[in-house]
């Protein structure tokens, strides 16, 4: 923000980048829907850009975000989503919520997924696999949940290469000591 008064100072005004901050944040991703994959990724990106130590722990349906078989193909559905609007471009109708009966018609999930992907791409936000690679390059640590891996019959080879390790809840508690935890 530009200030309007005139203020000439002798010592140069230097921003405080607060490099010594020991802030730490852990995101827990428990959902595998396309729309629920993004909140943690976008906030993690913001945290990393602020130099904050960032961990992301994937559990239950969130495993789909790091399972190589599913991560490219997350879906968005209007079913059960009472906040879902009619598609944009339909005038006043676009302000209305979508009738749930309509949301359940064949092909609607595919259509909704395609539309959401386009809206995300229009904002130049990457798809989930590319986003996870970016976060990892920025220094995020990705962790998979041991119980979910066991329950879903997965092994390390099924997981995105940048996942650091499969850990149990006790280990997650240890690594999140002193951190802010955001559950999605």
């Amino acid at each position, binding site marked *: 923000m*530009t200030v309007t008064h005139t203020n000439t100072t*002798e010592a140069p005004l230097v*921003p405080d980048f607060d490099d010594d901050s020991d802030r730490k944040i852990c995101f827990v991703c428990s959902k595998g829907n396309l729309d629920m994959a993004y909140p943690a990724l976008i906030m993690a990106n913001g945290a990393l850009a602020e130099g904050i130590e960032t961990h992301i722990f994937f559990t239950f349906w969130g495993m789909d975000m790091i399972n190589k078989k599913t991560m490219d193909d997350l879906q968005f559905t209007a079913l059960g989503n009472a906040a879902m609007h009619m598609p944009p471009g339909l005038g006043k109708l676009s302000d209305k919520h979508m009738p749930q009966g309509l949301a359940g018609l064949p092909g609607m999930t595919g259509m909704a997924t395609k539309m959401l992907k386009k809206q995300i791409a229009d904002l130049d936000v990457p798809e989930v696999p590319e986003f996870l690679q*970016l976060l990892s390059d920025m220094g995020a640590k990705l962790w998979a949940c041991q119980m979910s891996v066991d329950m879903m019959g997965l092994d390390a080879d099924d997981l995105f290469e940048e996942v650091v390790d499969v850990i149990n809840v006790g280990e997650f508690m240890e690594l999140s000591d002193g951190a802010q935890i955001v559950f999605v």
Partner: protein
Amino acid sequence: MSTTTIAGHSVNVNDEGFMTEYDEWNEDLGRELASMIGIDELTAEHWEAINFLRGDFAERSETPTLRRVTKVGGIPTKQLFVLFPKKPAKKMAYVAGLPKPKGCV
């Protein structure tokens, strides 16, 4: 508008200290801004990033985000964190005499 004196030049800055006038910046000022935030030497790699930021801002009137510097400028994200530790997006913008990037990603 605040002004501050950097390396003998009086420049316009915002309330955090980021320069607000694109044309007041020059390479000497860039070196000075870098040294004030702990980057003592600007290497060719630093300049590649700074020049991309300035060129992109001149075209789009917007400071590029980290992702754009990587995707369009071709400089790997990991390298940006090495060149401008901890907060590369803000630090690059500061050294290049530009506002902080506004984009979320």
